[in-house]
């Protein structure tokens, strides 16, 4: 019940395409859903986050879509660029201090 399942494990998209990464959860008590971006050799960094009272949040080229009834949320990257190539992690939280992490998606944007 504490798991967050993330798919796909890896994804290759042409420049300008829209990669979509999906996450699913079981615990309806989760109330905070962030996405983190990690470049090789670096720690993860917060990209964008959403709470379950909204269905979509957009920041620049990054959009989170949230489906509360299906217990799923996804990350879309518009007009993807080679610089977006990174590993992306979804996570969920039921408290202010502990995150449950997905396994990560390695994204490659081909020029």
């Amino acid at each position, binding site marked *: 019940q504490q798991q967050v399942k*993330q798919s796909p*494990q890896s994804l290759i998209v042409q420049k300008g395409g829209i990669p979509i990464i999906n996450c699913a959860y079981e615990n309806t008590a989760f109330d*905070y859903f*962030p996405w983190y971006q990690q470049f090789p*050799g*670096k*720690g*993860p*960094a*917060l990209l964008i*986050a959403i709470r379950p009272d909204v269905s979509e949040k957009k920041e620049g080229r990054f959009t989170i879509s949230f489906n509360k009834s299906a217990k799923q949320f996804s990350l879309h990257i518009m007009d993807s660029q080679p610089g977006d190539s990174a590993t992306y*992690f979804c996570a969920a*939280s039921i408290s*202010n*201090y*502990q*995150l449950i*992490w*997905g*396994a*990560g998606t390695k994204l490659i944007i081909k020029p």
Partner: protein
Amino acid sequence: DAGITQSPRHKVTETGTPVTLRCHQTENHRYMYWYRQDPGHGLRLIHYSYGVKDTDKGEVSDGYSVSRSKTEDFLLTLESATSSQTSVYFCAISRGQGGETQYFGPGTRLLVL
């Protein structure tokens, strides 16, 4: 930059030896975390701290201990290192109490031979 440093950044050690990793923050954040990152497993929480001398276990705490004697420092100790503890270790901080964002350090790459 959340002012987090980790030391050492790389370490090679032998099975059975104790190892201590240090996380240092400069911004007096209340919550500190130790994670390990392994391919296919994402980030797994080892231990976390919610104040000086206040710590609790995460999902993969066996074989690890932590200490926090000062707000700015959070130490992770591998009591007797094993090859299964070869990993990249990340420290993270958060303000807590409405500050859910976790800020990560640069990581420590540990190889246990």
